[in-house]
């Protein structure tokens, strides 16, 4: 029964799909091709499968067992090429169709010498698998005993189906095959072998292996021979690689497999199969190169890169990762849990978390700590990506060593902490300082208030000089004007001076003199019709001299007027007095042409004496007025004391004579000329001596003694007069005082003389004293210092 026409699905298939028609059952197909079958359709007679397995692709048709399969009708005859192929196959020869990159082989399957079907195989070189031949043989098996036939390797060709099939298989295999006999002679060689080496059957057949020098280079031949030897001995040989130049001059790499063919444990021969793996090798080397390049890249990267599968096995473990962890890939893979090893203790959990959290296509980054092989702690940042390929999950991780950064961070943190601490301390200190400052401020405010009050007080006090209507100035000991009140302006104008500048030289000298002597001094200065009297007061500690001015113009004026008045008055009084005195004197002398009797003489004497007394009074008044004006001008000049005393004595001798008193004088001749005020000192002597004469009774004595000591002149006026009563002694120098007994003497006396004499002596720098006993006598003693002797 002819096979039904193949259903439409078959026609839709790629015309490259070939058909396997075979007397086989679905079960048998399944047994050989297992999961590689895909049922396309089913009819009463056949079940049609598609099968696709590695290098084999095709359609499998299984006979259900009902009816006979008719080959010719099972094809679509519109395909002429198929018809041609079948015709050729009827000759029981395999047909090889080369259509790069594929190769198709058709094997005829004769059943009862009729072409029952054929096996068609399409092969793509690159997808050749290792056990291709094995598979092929097994395929062959269910088409008969071919497999067994082939393995038994009978030398003679049998036209049994199996042998033929095997033959075909052998001949058409894509690998170069060489069959050697027990003795090592070439029994058969397949087509591929011929194309590989560009030789024909004739070259090969009957030759010994060692004679195949034209195709195998010496080293290769040696290898083959050696293998042959080993095989004979029953050793299994692993496939070996050799390289040679083929007939086209192209370098090829071949994989040579030597297989022992035994039957009943007897070595029957050898099958040498040669596979051209150049392509593969190139691809391999390219792959290797790529891989190597990849490795280089991975190793040059400064991050640890790992690629591991879901079981934790590392496929990639770059150089940096080794450096980072101290382990290499193999060691990492040996560990039960590498992650736990490098992320021990508390770090394990975060490490696994990365794997748990990462989602396909996303990157999960976290930070963790690694403890390397030496136990050194490293901070890392880990970025993990999940990849999926061929149904498997991979984890790609990048480890970035952040230790340095982390350490820097930590140091920074520590520093920051320090800074914070310091800052806190500073804040505290600042707060303390602020507190102290506030405290101080209060104190300062308080003190300032006190000082201000004082300043106000001082200013008020200080106003006095500014308010003084007279000049008040302050000059430094060097002559610089330090202060001048407003009243000083006129004076400063004449000086051409102002505060800060030097005063005129004369004043500066005066100031200096006062400062150095540390004594006050009074100085009068005339200024614009005014006479200012300045008191210069030195302030040693401050190195300046204060000048307090006083307008004494009026005083001066008054004094001047007084003096003039006194002068005039004294003159006016003295003139008539002189007349009275002189005319009464003339009367007494009898010069007036008259001789007086006793009574007349007495009267006239009284007149004369009174006039004399009045003269004395006028003298005293003049002296007093001088004293009262405050200025007893003691003006020293170089003079001779003795001369003066002599004169005085001469003057007073008549008075003494009249009183009947002896007047004696003794002046030390060693007394030199020295500086004293002759006018005033004369007055002293005159006063004392005349007093002595006056208050001594008749036949008394008055002695004047003048002695010289080391630096003084001591004068004594001794009398034997009435003396001074004790009661009166304490008051004797008092102005206007006259002791009662003197009064009783009826001597006119003003009582001024002694006070004047005392004043003069003291002005001279000396002292005056007396001793007296009533009715015995008085001795006045005074001293004058010797100054500036020649």
């Amino acid at each position, binding site marked *: 029964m002819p096979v039904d026409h193949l259903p439409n699905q078959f026609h839709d298939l790629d015309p490259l799909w070939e058909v396997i028609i075979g007397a086989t059952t679905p079960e048998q197909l399944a047994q050989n091709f297992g999961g590689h079958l895909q049922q396309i359709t089913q009819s009463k007679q056949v079940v049609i499968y598609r099968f696709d397995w590695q290098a084999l692709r095709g359609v499998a048709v299984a006979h259900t067992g009902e009816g006979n399969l008719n080959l010719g009708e099972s094809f679509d005859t519109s395909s002429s090429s198929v018809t041609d192929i079948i015709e050729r196959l009827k000759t029981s020869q395999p047909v090889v169709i080369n259509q790069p990159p594929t190769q198709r082989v058709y094997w005829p399957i004769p059943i009862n010498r009729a072409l029952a079907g054929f096996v068609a195989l399409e092969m793509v070189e690159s997808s050749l698998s290792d056990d291709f031949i094995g598979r092929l043989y097994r395929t062959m098996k269910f088409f008969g005993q071919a497999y067994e036939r082939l393995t038994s390797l009978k030398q003679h060709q049998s036209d049994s189906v199996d042998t033929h099939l095997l033959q075909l298989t052998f001949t058409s295999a894509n690998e170069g095959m060489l069959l050697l006999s027990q003795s090592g002679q070439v029994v058969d060689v397949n087509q591929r072998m011929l194309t590989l080496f560009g030789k024909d059957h004739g070259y090969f057949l009957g030759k010994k292996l060692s004679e195949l020098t034209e195709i195998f280079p010496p080293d290769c031949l040696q290898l083959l021979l050696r293998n042959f030897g080993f095989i004979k001995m029953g050793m299994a040989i692993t496939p070996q690689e050799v390289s040679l130049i083929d007939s086209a001059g192209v370098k090829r790499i071949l994989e040579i497999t030597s297989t022992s063919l035994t039957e009943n444990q007897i070595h029957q021969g050898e099958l040498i199969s040669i596979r051209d793996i150049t392509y593969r090798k190139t691809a391999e080397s390219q792959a290797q190169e790529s891989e190597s390049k990849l490795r280089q890249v991975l190793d040059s990267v400064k991050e640890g890169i790992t690629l591991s599968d879901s079981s934790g096995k590392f496929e990639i473990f770059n150089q940096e990762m080794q450096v980072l962890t101290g382990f290499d890939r193999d060691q990492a893979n040996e560990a039960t849990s590498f992650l736990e090893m490098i992320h021990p203790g508390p770090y394990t959990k975060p490490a696994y978390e990365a794997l748990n959290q990462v989602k396909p296509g996303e990157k999960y980054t976290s930070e963790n700590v690694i403890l390397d092989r030496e136990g050194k702690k490293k901070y890392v940042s880990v970025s993990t990506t999940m990849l999926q390929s061929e149904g498997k999950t991979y984890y790609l991780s990048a480890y970035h060593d952040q230790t340095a950064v982390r350490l820097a961070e930590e140091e920074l943190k520590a520093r920051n902490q320090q800074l914070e601490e310091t800052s806190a301390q500073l804040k505290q200190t600042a707060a303390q300082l602020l507190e102290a400052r506030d405290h101080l401020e209060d104190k300062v405010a308080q003190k300032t208030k006190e000082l201000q009050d004082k300043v106000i007080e001082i200013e008020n006090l200080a106003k006095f000089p500014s308010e003084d209507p007279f000049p008040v100035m302050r000059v430094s000991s060097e002559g610089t004007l330090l202060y001048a009140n407003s009243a000083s302006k006129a004076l400063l104008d004449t000086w051409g001076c102002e505060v800060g500048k030097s005063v005129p030289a004369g004043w500066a000298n005066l100031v200096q003199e006062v400062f150095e002597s540390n004594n006050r001094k009074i100085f009068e200065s005339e200024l614009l019709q005014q006479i200012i009297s300045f008191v210069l007061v030195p302030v040693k500690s401050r190195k300046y001299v204060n000048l307090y001015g006083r307008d004494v113009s009026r005083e001066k004026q008054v004094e001047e007027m007084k*003096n003039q008045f*006194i*002068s005039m008055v*004294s*003159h006016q*009084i*003295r*003139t008539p*007095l*002189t*007349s009275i*005195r*002189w*005319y009464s*004197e*003339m009367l007494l*002398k009898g*010069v007036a042409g008259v001789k007086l009797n006793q009574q007349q003489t007495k009267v006239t004497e009284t007149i004369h004496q009174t006039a*004399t007394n009045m*003269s*004395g009074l*006028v*003298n005293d008044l*003049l002296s007093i007025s*001088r004293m009262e004006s405050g200025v007893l*001008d003691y*003006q020293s000049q170089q003079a001779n004391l003795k001369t003066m005393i002599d004169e005085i004595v*001469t*003057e007073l001798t*008549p008075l003494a004579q009249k009183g009947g008193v002896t007047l004696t004088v003794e002046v030390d001749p060693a007394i030199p000329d020295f500086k004293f005020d002759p*006018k005033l000192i004369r007055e002293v002597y005159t006063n004392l001596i005349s007093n002595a004469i006056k208050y001594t009774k008749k036949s008394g004595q008055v002695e004047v003694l003048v002695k010289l000591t080391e630096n003084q002149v001591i004068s004594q006026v001794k009398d034997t007069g009435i003396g001074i009563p004790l009661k009166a002694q304490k008051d004797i120098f008092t102005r206007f005082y006259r002791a009662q007994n003197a009064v009783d003497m009826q001597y006119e006396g003003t009582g001024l003389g002694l006070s004047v004499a005392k004043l003069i002596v003291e002005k001279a720098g000396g002292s005056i004293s007396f001793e007296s006993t009533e009715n015995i006598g008085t001795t006045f003693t005074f001293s004058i210092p010797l100054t500036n002797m020649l």
Partner: protein
Amino acid sequence: MKNILLIEDDKLLGEAIVQTIKNEGFDVFWSKTAEEGFKVLELQAVDFIYLDIMLPGEVDGYEILRRVRADERFKTIPVVMLTNLGQMSEIDRAMELGATDYFIKANIDLDQLVSLTKQRLNI
């Protein structure tokens, strides 16, 4: 015989002095004004001059003194101021101008005047 020139304007006092000096045997020329006094000086050989300070006219005793002392002819003649002015300043002035002495009339007797004059004239 010594010639004494007295320049004094007070009549009473002058009279007293003149009489007293005459009694001692001196020749006295009594001028009541400065001009008169100068005339006398010119005409007479004067050995001594008594000079009052307060005089009528513009020329006072000081001036006379000054002139006398300035004049070569009269420079050496002793000049005694006879006055009743008694202020220190007056005395100083007179002495500075070259007076030989200074007496306050009210303070001396005629006797004293004579004896002092004699002393000055070294008699």
